[in-house]
Structures are given as C-alpha cells and as structure tokens.
C-alpha cells in the first residue's frame, strides 16, 4: 500500500495571462492562478494508483498564501492530506531554493514510497525542480513519464523522450515526473469541492523545516512577451483556376518555414 506525495504548484493560468501592449510585461497582479496542468495529472495518477493499490495520497506545495487554493483543489480531486509551505518571498526563489524546500518538506512528511511531480510547471516551465529534489533526496528519478505501473516494491515507468519510448524499472522509493499525456484528470463534483474547503491544510514556514538563509544561484532578470512579427504573405486564390497554384505555393512556403 504505497504512500504517494504529489508536489503541486499554484501557477499563473497562462491562457488567461495578459501583457501590457507597450512594455510587453505580463500583468501578473491580475492574472488568475490554478494548479499547474502537469501537476494535476500527477495528482490524478496518484489517485489512480491509490484506487488500485490502496495507500495514501498527500499533496504538497510551496508558495505564497494563495497557494493553499491549489491544495484545496487537490483535496477536491480526492487526496487524503494536504501540506503547504508558505513563504511570502516565494516568487524570488530560484529552482534550487524551491527544490531544497520541497526536499525538506518531503523528509518531514516522511514515510513515502513514491514522489510525483509534473515534469514542468505551466508558468515557469523550467523543468528543473523535480530532478533537483531527487538529487537532494538521493532518489532515483524518471522524467517525462506517460505511464506508471507498480509491481511490488518496484515501479515501471515509461518515458517519452520524443525520439522513442523508454520503460524503466526502479526500486521504491522513487521520484517520477509526468507529462500531459499520462491521463485525463478528473473534474471534481460539487460535493467534493465543498468537502475540500472544510479539510485542514497543514501549513509550515521555512523555519519549521529548518531551512535557513537561501543562497540564490541565479536570478530571472526579465520576462516579457516577445514580439512575433507576422509575414503577411498573400497567395492569390481569387478564382478557381488560381487555387491549385496557390495551394502549391502555400505548401512550399510552409515547408520553407519548417512547419510541415
């Protein structure tokens, strides 16, 4: 009966993210947030493993005060316990800092067989946190996973490295990061959402975890919406006899761009 810890990030909903047309900076203050897309798949996968093998699913986040909303969402999906490490300076931390905090929190929760992550967060998309946590915890790590199977004390995970699928077998405990392809996450019912808002979320500070001053290894200097100038190429298909030629030209142009 595996105990699974799933790390979830309260991310900016990039689909609703807008930017200032002149400075091209993102309007973060007004952007809605939600659980990161791949992390939601990780929660779903943990719940499916639990439905098959029993055990317990624990959701863990590090973030600002509002990241508790993501734990609530995990509760609504059906996790058993929720932990949030709250720090007001979260936005300024680099991936090393976040990984170190998560590793400490996972140690403090203890007694786990599997740690699941989304391979990348919807907003930051650095893909650095899961391997760093694995390193801090000294756990075997499998990335870009689209299928997980438990067999006794082992986990079989199939990774998609785009050039091919690789299936690995490692001994538990292990750390696995999943992609969007692994499953279709459930949409919680009204009753589950209402129950979730009554469940307690254990909140820790960095001090509770014994994490002292954090050394920054790198800093994000700027983030903005790049300008993508359009080429405005027009193919003349204004009469029936011109269509075949226009289609051919369009195909050639797309090939030149490397799109097809």
């Amino acid at each position, binding site marked *: 009966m595996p105990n699974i810890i799933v790390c979830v990030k309260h991310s900016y909903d990039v689909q609703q993210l807008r930017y200032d047309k002149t400075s091209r900076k993102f309007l973060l203050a*007004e952007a809605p947030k*939600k659980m990161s897309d791949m992390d939601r798949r990780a929660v779903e996968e943990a719940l499916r493993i639990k439905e098959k093998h029993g055990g317990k699913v624990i959701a863990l986040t590090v973030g600002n005060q509002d990241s508790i*909303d993501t734990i*609530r*969402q995990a509760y*609504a999906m059906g996790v058993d316990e929720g932990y949030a490490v709250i720090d007001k300076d979260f936005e300024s931390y680099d991936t090393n800092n976040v990984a170190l905090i998560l590793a400490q929190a996972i140690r403090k929760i203890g007694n786990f067989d599997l740690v699941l992550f989304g391979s990348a967060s919807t907003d930051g998309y650095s893909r650095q946190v899961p391997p760093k946590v694995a390193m801090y915890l000294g756990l075997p790590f499998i990335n870009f996973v689209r299928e997980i199977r438990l067999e006794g004390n082992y986990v079989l995970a199939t990774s998609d490295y785009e050039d091919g699928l690789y299936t690995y077998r490692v001994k538990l405990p292990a750390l696995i990061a999943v992609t969007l392809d692994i499953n*279709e996450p459930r*949409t*919680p*019912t*009204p*009753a*589950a*959402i*209402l129950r*979730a*808002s009554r469940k307690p979320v254990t909140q820790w500070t960095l001090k509770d975890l014994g994490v002292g001053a954090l050394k920054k290894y790198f800093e994000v200097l700027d983030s903005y919406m790049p300008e993508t100038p359009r080429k405005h190429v027009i193919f003349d298909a204004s009469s029936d006899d011109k269509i075949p030629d226009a289609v051919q030209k369009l195909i050639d142009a797309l090939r030149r761009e490397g799109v097809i």
Partner: protein
Amino acid sequence: MSTPIFYPKDTLVSFTKDEIMFRESVREFAQKYIAPKWIEIDEEASKDPMKIPLDLIKKVADQGLLCIPCSDKYGGQGGTYTMATIAIEELAYADPAVALAVYTLLNNGWPFALQLFGKEEVAQEIIPHVSKGEAFFGIASTEPQGGSDVANIRMTAKKSGNVYVFNGEKAYISGVGEVQVLPWGGGWFLIARTGEAGHRGLSAFAFLAKKNGVIRKGWYPTVYHDIGRHGLTTGGFKCENFELEQEYLIGEENKGFYYVMEGFNLARILVAAATVGGARWLLEQAAQWFKTRKLFGRYIASFQGISFKFAELYAKYEAARYFVYRAARLADKIYIEKDPAYNPKDLNVPVALAKMYGPELAAELGQEVMKWYGAYAYTKESPIHRAWLGLFSYTIGAEGAQNIMRYIIARDLLGSEYVRD
C-alpha cells in the same frame, strides 16, 4: 470556432473560491464531453425525439450535476443554489440548444422542491435515483386548455382509500420520453385538483409514472415533435383512473398551488441561467464572425448599425446575468442558509426579472446573430439556428410565459388590487 468575450472585473456578481473552482470544473467537463456532441444530438433527436442522449445524462449525473442543492442525505450534493445556477449556465454554454442544460436544471429545481415540501420517505425514495441519472423528476402543470392559468387546472385526483385516482390530461410536459427510457423511471411534481374550483382546490403530488422500471397502469403518454431543444423530449399524457399511493401527496392537500409557485421560482432561476449561458455562446459566435467578415472593404462591426446593436445586446446580457445571480444568492439565503431575514416571497420579483429578461435577450440575440451571419445562418451547416430555437422555448413559455413574469413584477410592486382585472 468562437472568440471568448472578456468580462470586465466585476465586484457585484462575484464568486467564492469554491464557486470559482466549481465553475472551472463544470466548464472543463462540459467542454470536454458535451460541446463536441450537442449538434449531433440536436440533429438526431430532431428526426426522432426518442434519441435521448442517455450516455451523457449518466455522465452529467456522475459529475454530480443533478440534485446539487439537495441534501447529501438523499444522495444530493449538499451544495447551494448558486452552484446549481453556475452548473446550468456552463452546460448551456456548451450546449446552447439547451437539451442537456434543461434536463439538468429540471432535475435540480424540482427534486429540491420535493425535498422542501414532500415527505421524508418520498424524498428518500426518489431523489437518490434522480441524482444518479436513473430517474427523471420534472414539473407537470400545463394542460391543453392553457398553461398560464394554473388556478384552472382540470386534472382531478380523487382520494379513494389509500390512493388518489387521477383523471385528466397534461400537455407540453418535459421529460415524457425520459421517464419511459430511464432505468428507474420517475415522474413529476404534478398539480391536480383535489378540491374546490380555483387555486385553493389544487394539490401537488410526487407523481411517479414509472417506478422501479415499471410503467404504472392508467398512464398514456405521447411524445411531440418539437422545433428545437432536441434531445430532451416534451410530450403529453392522459390519466385514466391512474392510482397513486397517498404518501405521494406533497405537503397538505389543497395547498399545492403555493408549493408549485415556490418551485417555479426556484426552477426559473435556472431557466434564466440557461439562457445566459446560451447567450454567451451566441455573443462569442458574433465576436468570432466580426473578426473575419468584411464587406465594402471593412470589417462589418465597423458599421455602427452592427456594432451598436452588439453593444446593446451585450448590455442586456450583463443585466440578465446580474438578475440571475442576484436571484440565486437570494434563493440561498432563503432555502439553504435559512436566514430569517428573508422569506420565499422575496424571490418573486428578482426571479421574474431574471426569467423575463434572460429568455428575451437570448431570443433577440439569436435572431440578430442569425442576421449578422447572413444566408449561411439559414443553412443547416450553421449551428446558430439550433441555439436560437432551443433558447426560444423559454420565450414561448417553458416554466412560465413571459407576460406572466411581467404580471408578477407589476403585481408585487404595485399591489394585486391594482393589477388584477
């Protein structure tokens, strides 16, 4: 293809975190399972009204979208009326012909009315099946001689020993097909005459035409061919010495008129929510078209004849949305929070405003969007007429004719002595 409309930041119609999470959950569900299918459902059931999308009804049930405000004691979701309203708005946005939205709204509003006024055992018996999508529970008030004049209902229910014996006819009733094909069955919050002429002689019943999979004796249904909202049947039925055990009487005998009026108030909030969801879909269809269609070398919305009308309809849409959620919040105060500062009559005007405004906006908008799209909209290729005709059912009168809403507003504001003839 549609273009999402961005709403201004709204502090008046604002939602709790639970409600926001719930809206996202329903939207994702509805866009995934219903939006890709609604056109096919509408088309198939237009040819054969008994092509009922049973698989989707089950999915809606599994998603917990039926009986949302009903107590979990009866297998309901233990949610709020505002949550039910959100669900219906999102379902109608995904299915603007509103078959599934209306199936869902009836099976929220009327089981909840049954919970409020019916007997405990009866609620225990029926609501769990409704909430699992195994039974339908709607409203049967209208009769062939006219729906608006509820006080003149002719179907009789005569007490005889332990049963009531029903004779008469109901017409234009939603769910006549569903009750027949759903595994458990179901029926309606039905109004029939047990006493004197007028509204004081009416009683309400949990009228089960089919129960435990068995259609009961003396019930003779027919299913109509409607012009829209295909995928949810309407039909009529005759009762010829149809017997119903006395425990299915809702509340007290001859008080049915009052219960059904409260039930209508509840159901009409959701009706109006469906028209707001459908209207949002229509607005987005329009916005999408305005970004592509050019005439005389300009985008068509650069003609003020078009953009001003769009702006006016958008204003009505926001007003309708406000009416809907104001009424839903009030319903929560009265029926969920049971706040003593509010009583059921407080809902009359807010609900009538929502039910008057939403359907008329949706029908007008449907017609305008048809015109903006031009001849294409008049072909079956285009889905817009399906939304227009589906939503128009509520301007015709489903859950109460539009003039009755005007009557209620004027009556409650001016006093009935000045409004009655």
